[in-house]
């Protein structure tokens, strides 16, 4: 299992999801779940990815991750359309535990409303919610 970490370059959603928007590409975001979320879930044994082309609505569930014990909804931090899914997770879902911000990314979306990012938290604000 990975060490606790919350990268500085991500935007965070209160349901323990992250979004990465590259500086040179404001049109797209890569999404995943945070270290806190994967730790609470335990070893991920199944990720059922939505299809490319699926529309995500901010704050709504778009996928499920499952540990041996439980199933957990993954909430969209931003709205958009899926352009790519992490196919490697089908064979190795535990990457979500081992590298939640890297190899364990879930989907890439084309953003439908670039102003939504303003509602997300920076790392300091997000980690403060975990301390409470």
């Amino acid at each position, binding site marked *: *299992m990975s060490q606790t970490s919350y990268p500085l370059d991500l935007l965070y959603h209160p349901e323990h999801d992250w979004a990465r928007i590259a500086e040179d590409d404001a049109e797209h975001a890569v999404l995943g779940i945070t270290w806190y979320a994967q730790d609470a879930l*335990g*070893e991920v*044994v*199944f990720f*059922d990815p939505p299809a490319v082309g699926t529309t995500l609505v901010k704050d709504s569930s778009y996928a499920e991750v499952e540990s*041996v*014990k439980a*199933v957990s909804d993954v909430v969209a931090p931003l709205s958009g359309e899926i352009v790519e899914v992490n196919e490697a997770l089908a064979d190795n879902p535990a990457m979500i535990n081992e590298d939640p911000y890297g190899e364990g990314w879930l989907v890439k979306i084309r953003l439908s409303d670039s102003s939504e990012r303003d509602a997300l938290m920076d790392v300091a604000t997000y980690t403060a919610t975990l301390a409470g």
Partner: protein
Amino acid sequence: MSSTTPPALRRTPLYDRHVAAGAKLVDFAGWEMPVQYEGVRPEHMAVRKTCGMFDVSHMGEIETSGPGALELLQCLLSNDVAKIAPDGAQYSVLCREDGGVLDDLFTYRLDAERYLTVTNASNHERDLAWFERHAQAVDGVQVQDAIDAWAMLAVQGPLAREIVQAISDAPLPARMRAEMRRLAGVEVLVCGTGYTGEDGVELLCAPEYAPALWDEIVRRGGVPAGLGARDTLRLEVCFHLYGNDLSVDRGPIEAGLGWCCKEDTDFIGADAVRAVRERGPAEKLVAFALEGPGIARQGNPISGGGEVTSGTLSPCLGIGIGMAYVPAGHAAVGTQLEIDVRGKMRPAVVKDKPLYRKGS
């Protein structure tokens, strides 16, 4: 005075050991219990390959003693209690008059007129009240709540007996036997029983001795395992979990537990059980495996009727497995099922029990 604070969770004598080992603790039937330490999968595999150890001190015990003990237990328990030899053990269910299952239980015969019955934590108070109520109609019997008198460890796996034998003053009792031994200097009721499908023992001792016993077995290679692994292990070998696969809404015949019901002993519920056995149950509990990806969970409905009562990903088989009640006509091994897993129809097939066989 009223308070909105939830009641404090009970802790076993091994609570400090769990915290020190980094366990994830959860509320289980009012007890603060370890669901996992390192992870469900490694703990599961430790039990299958070497030796795992579970703190199951949350389970309850009821001691029934006196010249009327056999009469009372024969009236309450579904199995033939007269068949339990001294130092023997027996599995049974506790039924209501209508055959609904109140609990499933192991009973150990400690002495000629002294029996210890192990209850599920969630049912202990109800079981105890049921025992006490029916004891009033039997002469010469004492029913005693023994939950505070015993801690309980389950040591399970191919190396479990070897590890426990090394600290025992005498050969360990055989499977389905229960005898007092001194383990590492501590008086322990050693039972040749378990809930994992592996060889092993269950150890009952006074709570104050449990931490030293735990430490000694860890030192000799017992891997602490949580309730998460306990659940995946029991489901691979199709042992029932009360609250999932057993409830007051269904009887033992439906659950496939007719083998531990001896209606001729006239236990409470025997008439209802006999009637279902004779006409055949409308539903049966089956084991299933998914044929593709996905994990079915408790409560998932099945096309054509029925529902999943237990489901998980099998660490040994690598596929979604579980148990479900289905209409009796859909219960034959090989029958195709379609399970509604949160809106996705997943194909599954009825399998032989157990789903996993020791050493396979």
